[in-house]
């Protein structure tokens, strides 16, 4: 009885591990897509409404996906705290906090990091160019991530359970 219970635990643990890996793959395109629209919003705020950066970030944080909101919200609070850091430093700090909780990978973060260097230092058209560049790069990453997700989500869902079953079978 105990043996069967342990087997069930091992198989479900393997399945859950596989599902967690698959979840990372399936969430990345979702986050990239909302990141792209969030940057689009930020660009609109900067170029057409000429909103100050902190306010614009707050507006974007309110409207964007709840997974991405902390990035913009924390940058805004860092800017408003008057600690004397530049927009780039605030952006980078928020990015470091945001990174472990998101499903984004290194190259997405490096796109965002290079965007941070352009935030709030030039006129609106310069910033808009940098935002457009970042959006384009994220769009390319999005296509790759979607193809990846299509391949890997099913694979890892099955592979986790299979791994658990194999472990049970070997040690039974």
């Amino acid at each position: 009885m105990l043996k069967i219970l342990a087997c069930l635990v091992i198989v479900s643990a393997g399945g859950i591990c596989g599902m967690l890996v698959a979840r990372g793959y399936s969430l990345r395109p979702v986050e990239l897509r909302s990141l792209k629209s969030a940057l689009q919003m930020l660009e609109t705020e900067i170029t057409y409404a000429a909103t100050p950066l902190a306010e614009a970030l707050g507006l974007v944080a309110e409207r964007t996906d709840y997974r991405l909101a902390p990035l913009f919200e924390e940058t805004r609070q860092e800017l408003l705290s008057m600690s004397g850091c530049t927009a780039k430093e605030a952006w980078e700090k928020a990015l470091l906090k945001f990174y472990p909780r998101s499903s984004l990978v290194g190259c997405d973060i490096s796109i965002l990091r290079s965007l941070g260097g352009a935030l709030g230092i030039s006129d609106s058209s310069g910033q808009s160019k940098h935002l457009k560049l970042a959006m384009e790069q994220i769009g390319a990453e999005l296509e790759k991530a979607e193809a990846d997700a299509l391949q890997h989500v099913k694979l890892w869902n099955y592979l986790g359970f299979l791994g658990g079953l194999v472990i049970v079978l070997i040690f039974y």
Partner: protein
Amino acid sequence: MTGFDISIVFKIVGLGILVGAAQYILKCANKEEYAFIATLAGLGIVLFWVVQLLGVFFEQVKSVFKLF
């Protein structure tokens, strides 16, 4: 045939089925090299079990014919 445990046969069959499924899934995901590694690992595990049984078999043959 005393002491021969029939469950080893079912274990080998089960592992064969699982390895087959893993290979199919990995092939579908365009990961032929991992499919090959999975097959090889399955083969290794089964060989490990079978070699143990063969060892027992040879011991019995030796004891029956009083070799050595």
